[in-house]
């Protein structure tokens, strides 16, 4: 059973999470009216054989969206961090937010 270590809740079965796909594709600005850029963002995905950065939503836990790096061949989870964070990856239960 694929297990993801939520930075807030600890290691959990992946069924607690919703899948969000490619996390490297960034959404254009809303004001961007370029159809090509939007279509690239919405439809065209990174789909590597190997390490993949992807979003997971801890739906049945803390309801946080996470950015997970995972190997798509071995399913090994390499790092997990909150989706909103862009700095170094964190893993493990103790995350002090305050």
């Amino acid at each position, binding site marked *: *059973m*694929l297990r993801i270590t939520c930075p807030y809740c600890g290691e959990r*079965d*992946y*069924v607690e999470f919703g*899948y969000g*796909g*490619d996390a490297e594709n960034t959404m254009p600005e809303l004001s961007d009216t370029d*159809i*090509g850029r939007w*279509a690239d963002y*919405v*439809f*065209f*995905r*990174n*789909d*590597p*054989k190997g390490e*993949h950065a*992807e979003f997971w939503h801890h739906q049945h836990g803390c309801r946080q969206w996470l950015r997970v790096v*995972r190997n*798509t*061949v*071995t*399913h090994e989870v390499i790092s997990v961090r909150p989706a909103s964070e862009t700095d170094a990856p964190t893993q493990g239960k103790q995350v002090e937010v305050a």
Partner: protein
Amino acid sequence: MTHYSAFSLFKEALRGNKGWSRAWRDAEPKPAYDVVIIGGGGHGLATAYYLAKEHGITNVAVVEKGYIGGGNTGRNTTIVRSNYMIDGNTSFYEHSMKLWEGMSRDLNFNVMYSPRGQINLCHSPAQMDAAMRRGNIMRMNGIDAELLSREAVMKRVPILDYSANARFPIHGGLLQERAGTARHDAVAWGYARGASARGVDIIQGCEVTGYQWDRGRIVGVETTRGPIKAKKVAMAVAGHTSHMAKMAGLRLPIETHVLQAFVTEAIKPVIDCVVSFGAVHFYISQSDKGGLVLGGDLDGHNSYGQRGDLPIVEENMAAAKALVPLVSRLQLVRHWAGVMDMSMDGSPIMCKSPVEGLYINGGWCYGGFKATPASGWCYAHTIATERPHALNARFTLDRFHRGYQIDEKGMGPTPWAH
């Protein structure tokens, strides 16, 4: 090539089966071909067969990294149907169905195409309405369809749960009588035999590891058995489409996902058609050997792992028992998985790629087995004539930018929901 018939079977049996010859030649790669097809699945082999048969192009190699039919062709739940509704899909899949109907005779290889009927169950009035719409479109396109009432489903498939205990009561279903199953391996072998007899080289144990380029154009492939030049390179690699496209510098509207399948012990016949649950993604049929073949949803995350995880095993088994209570005391003997090329609208992509010399055939999602003959037929046409056939004209790559998705399920760009 020995012609197959009841007579030859009998004759050879008397000779201790010593007289049979190889079904296809095990070819060594030549330095160059007119067309190199990457992927010895049903689609690649069928493409080679129709290139030779319909277009007279026989200087063709099918290059397979493992053994032919070892990809999704050899691991799918073998459902063949053409109950499609969206323009662009309907005629394509019906054309495929027509080819299925003549395939065994065309190939002189019994692919056990067994039109035993397929029923999509409905569990709410809204689903009945949707089935009505689909069935009507099918009929208007010359595809057989029948809307069954609850009672009619009951009569046809008595072993489903019609009790008050059913969580999702059966309201009725959409039946396609000509739909059914076929023997997956035989499709690969039959096309290989037919293609090989027409001069196509089938090269197994040969992985394409890159492309040969000449001024921005692809002119051949690098393989684990050396370079092979080709005027045209056509990929038909299903679950490896994104990966092979990436090697050519392309990013596609495709995600690769794992899909599992399951088989029980062989039992005497209990279910005589294919039944799809309408409440969750799940379907069941019985193989000729007697095993119940079960399939359902994706594991739900990008994967090239070709093995499935427990939650989906549980989901599928629970769905099996919810739909067909008698499976409770039957046993699962094996479960396996394939890697699926899930496209963003659930429909395939078959066209010339933006890279000169390279052709794309992928994005078949759950449904590419049934497409095998038409896919080969249309892909051969596209490769030979440099133009799509009318049947695959809509399976373009630019449809996403242009807003012409072929979204059979209305799920939008969430490939794991198709």
